[in-house]
């Protein structure tokens, strides 16, 4: 393809149909007569496009993104001619990269491997070799996607997936601009996908945004918080707003407190370079846990479009308050050597790549208030940690005790507080805990569980979070992507905590495999509450 970067005709080969396209574009939104909202069998399919991925040698790309691309293709959700371009500092030809992708797909794809799907997909796989500061490599990339437009009819639509350390963002974004890749010149669209962390505090988040902002308009920036792609997380909205039986009790009149937990059983593994200086609060609390809080606490959006949803989330996040005394309202810790799941593991400070005087926390807990009529006085306890007994993410609404129990005190000794638990991972589902009479006794009430498991009701249709999110990016559907305002609100909440911790001495040690630092338990005990068992 010999088209010059400045030549709009180069993006789509000149054709008589271009005239029709312009006519359509001029007439505004186009209506597809084959689509009918009642026809629920026909899924949304991405339009012609190229997905350009930076950082293809990373774990995420291999284990999640490449398999997700294949799974989408296998489900018939990618357009004819879809093309996938990798960019990395490897001396690879297209075939080598296709082989890497093939391996990743074979190992990690969710849907069965079909040769015909792979054949068709692999025809559109390309690789461009180079480093991020290499002008020539980016010019090659620009030529490569133009070629794809000509060969495979991808229509000049490019999505750039930056699966790279945030430090490299400015360089890559600058290169995209310099090489003309970021500019669609009115033909086709450009989208850029970035992964957390979105900065490490408010100032750096703004700086990161400024880097992108100069090159991509805000609606073209897709921030991936893969939690929002999870079916169970989206189900929070269905549970709350599609049902009649939960919303009436979803408030301070009935809820005693809320616990949002994200526990990981493993330590930091090979992520030392990333994790040191970041810590649990910045790593997962600022994004995942606050998003879960927002979905749990927000008011009903007027519609399920991106704007209404984000508006409600932003509203409730802006009502989040920190405890007056950060010393008693927060807790942090570092896992020390211990026994985790039957194996002896090293402490955080002994991990490779972690300085022995690191003050990075691997466990963070904080009590937040939500200053709205619905939630006034109901504490939201957030905790996130590594080196805990098991891997588990959940939202638990703990209800108040019944105001009066017409039973003898001894009958209800084993009755706890009612709870509604939304299990995000693993074993996605919902548990309701309530009291029930023990059979055979005169009247003895004990806690029982009622369970809904996603795995039982809808096993195989549940797509991976990345599948859903990638498709949404390619379609251009933004509801599941947090906006810059949400990111900034998250940092606004956490920055004072981080500042306070920084002025503090050292995180408290807790043995790996235990339930977290004693100060976290003490924080709950002061409020007369306990953490749910991990």
């Amino acid at each position: 393809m010999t088209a010059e970067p400045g030549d709009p005709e180069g993006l789509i080969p000149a054709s008589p149909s271009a005239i029709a396209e312009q006519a359509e574009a001029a007439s505004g939104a186009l209506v597809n007569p084959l689509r009918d909202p009642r026809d629920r069998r026909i899924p949304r399919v991405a339009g012609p496009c190229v997905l350009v991925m930076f950082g293809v040698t990373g774990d995420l790309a291999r284990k999640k993104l490449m398999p997700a691309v294949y799974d989408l293709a296998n489900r018939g959700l990618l357009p004819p001619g879809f093309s996938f371009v990798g960019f990395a500092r490897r001396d690879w030809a297209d075939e080598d990269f296709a082989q890497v992708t093939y391996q990743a797909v074979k190992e990690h794809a969710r849907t069965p491997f079909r040769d015909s799907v792979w054949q068709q997909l692999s025809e559109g796989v390309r690789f461009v070799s180079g480093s991020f500061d290499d002008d020539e490599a980016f010019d090659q990339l620009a030529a490569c996607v133009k070629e794809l437009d000509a060969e495979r009819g991808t229509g000049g639509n490019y999505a750039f997936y930056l699966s790279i350390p945030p430090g490299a963002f400015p360089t890559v974004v600058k290169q995209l601009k310099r090489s003309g890749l970021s500019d669609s010149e009115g033909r086709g669209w450009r989208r850029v996908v970035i992964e957390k962390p979105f900065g490490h505090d408010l100032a750096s988040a703004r700086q990161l945004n400024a880097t992108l902002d100069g090159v991509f308009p805000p609606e073209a920036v897709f921030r991936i918080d893969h939690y929002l792609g999870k079916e169970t997380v989206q189900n929070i909205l269905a549970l709350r707003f599609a049902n009649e039986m939960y919303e009436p009790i979803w408030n301070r009149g009935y809820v005693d407190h809320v616990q949002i937990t994200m526990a990981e059983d493993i330590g930091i593994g090979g992520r030392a370079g990333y994790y040191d200086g970041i810590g649990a609060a910045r790593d997962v609390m600022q994004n995942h846990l606050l998003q879960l809080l927002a979905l749990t606490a927000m008011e009903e959006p007027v519609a399920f479009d991106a704007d209404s949803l984000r508006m409600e989330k932003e509203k409730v996040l802006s009502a989040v308050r920190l405890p007056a005394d950060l010393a008693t309202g927060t807790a942090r810790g570092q896992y020390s050597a211990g026994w985790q799941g039957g194996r002896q593991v090293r402490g955080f400070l002994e991990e490779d790549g972690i300085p022995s005087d690191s003050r990075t926390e691997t466990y963070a807990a904080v009590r937040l208030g939500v200053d709205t009529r619905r939630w006034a006085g109901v504490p939201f306890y957030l905790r996130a940690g590594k080196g805990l007994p098991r891997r588990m993410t959940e939202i638990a609404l703990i209800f108040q005790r019944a105001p009066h129990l017409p039973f003898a005190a001894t009958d209800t000794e084993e009755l706890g507080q009612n709870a509604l638990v939304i299990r995000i991972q693993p074993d996605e589902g919902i548990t309701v805990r309530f009291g029930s009479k023990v059979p055979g006794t005169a009247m003895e009430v004990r806690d029982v569980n009622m369970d809904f498991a996603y795995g039982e009701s809808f096993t195989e249709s549940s797509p991976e979070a990345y599948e859903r999110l990638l498709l949404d990016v390619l379609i251009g559907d933004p509801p599941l992507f947090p906006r810059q305002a949400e990111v900034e609100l998250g940092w606004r909440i956490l920055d004072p905590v981080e500042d306070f911790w920084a002025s503090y001495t050292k995180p408290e040690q807790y043995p790996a495999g235990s339930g977290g630092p004693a100060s976290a338990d003490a924080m709950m005990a002061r409020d007369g509450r306990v953490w749910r068992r991990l």
Partner: protein
Amino acid sequence: MTIDLTDTTTSAITEAVTQARRRLGGPASGMVLTLIIVTDEAAQYDAVRAASQAGREHPSRVLAVITRKPKGESRLDAEIRVGDTGPGETILLRMYGPLGQHADSVVAPLLAPDVPVVTWWPDEAPSSPRADSLGGVAQRRVTDAAASDAPKEMLLGLATAYQPGDTDLSWTRSTPWRTLLAATLDQPYPELLSGEVLAEAANPTADLIAAWLSTRLRISVPRGESAGPGITEVSFDTPEGKITLARPDGRTATLSWPGRPDRRVALHRRDSADLIAEELRRLEPDEVYGETLHALAGGNGQ
């Protein structure tokens, strides 16, 4: 585990299922529907197998109604499979003698409580599914015109008898094609003057796609014949030339658009487990199917 009960009753079956579940250590949880399969001994294996595979996505109680010798004493034999066929449970009901005419009396007490019922005829279907005693209990009635000797005629019969909740697997088979066609027209496209659907002779799915395209696009879409396999081509005439979606090998389709490079996409044929899984995904009436069926019947009368 598999439990065989001969000359039995529905209450004995219910009892056996409850006990089997208890022995496996769990109550029936998360059962999302009851699927009644009306079939015969020869075809039951494939149908039940497809249903158990689909059961991984939609854990269900599968009731296979198999009619045996219509003459002689009434007798009910049951074969219960729990635990090894996936998350749901399967009960094969073999009905002998006059009981075969009253299968609904056997099925009614065995429907899982509180969840929808779907009836599927993998082969022969009644001319009016809704009026059938086993179709009457179901929210959704699934037939398969492609299994009939005269598919087109069967579709026309189904069109006359159509009631909301009816659906046919030949319509289900059209989904990947229709998805691709809809996606093709998501892009700006030139005026469509007429269309054509090419497929092997007895292919009710092609008939439905042609009818669907002609009602939605308000153009004439004749149905032509090719050697197959299945549907081989859908094309549109435009003032700029022909837009074609061709799938000669039953696996990969090529989209040709005047003035643009050819684009290829995987478009494979699906097995019955896939089809029935799609059918069970949505249980509300498929109005678009109803309209298409009517259009097909109307178009035929011209």
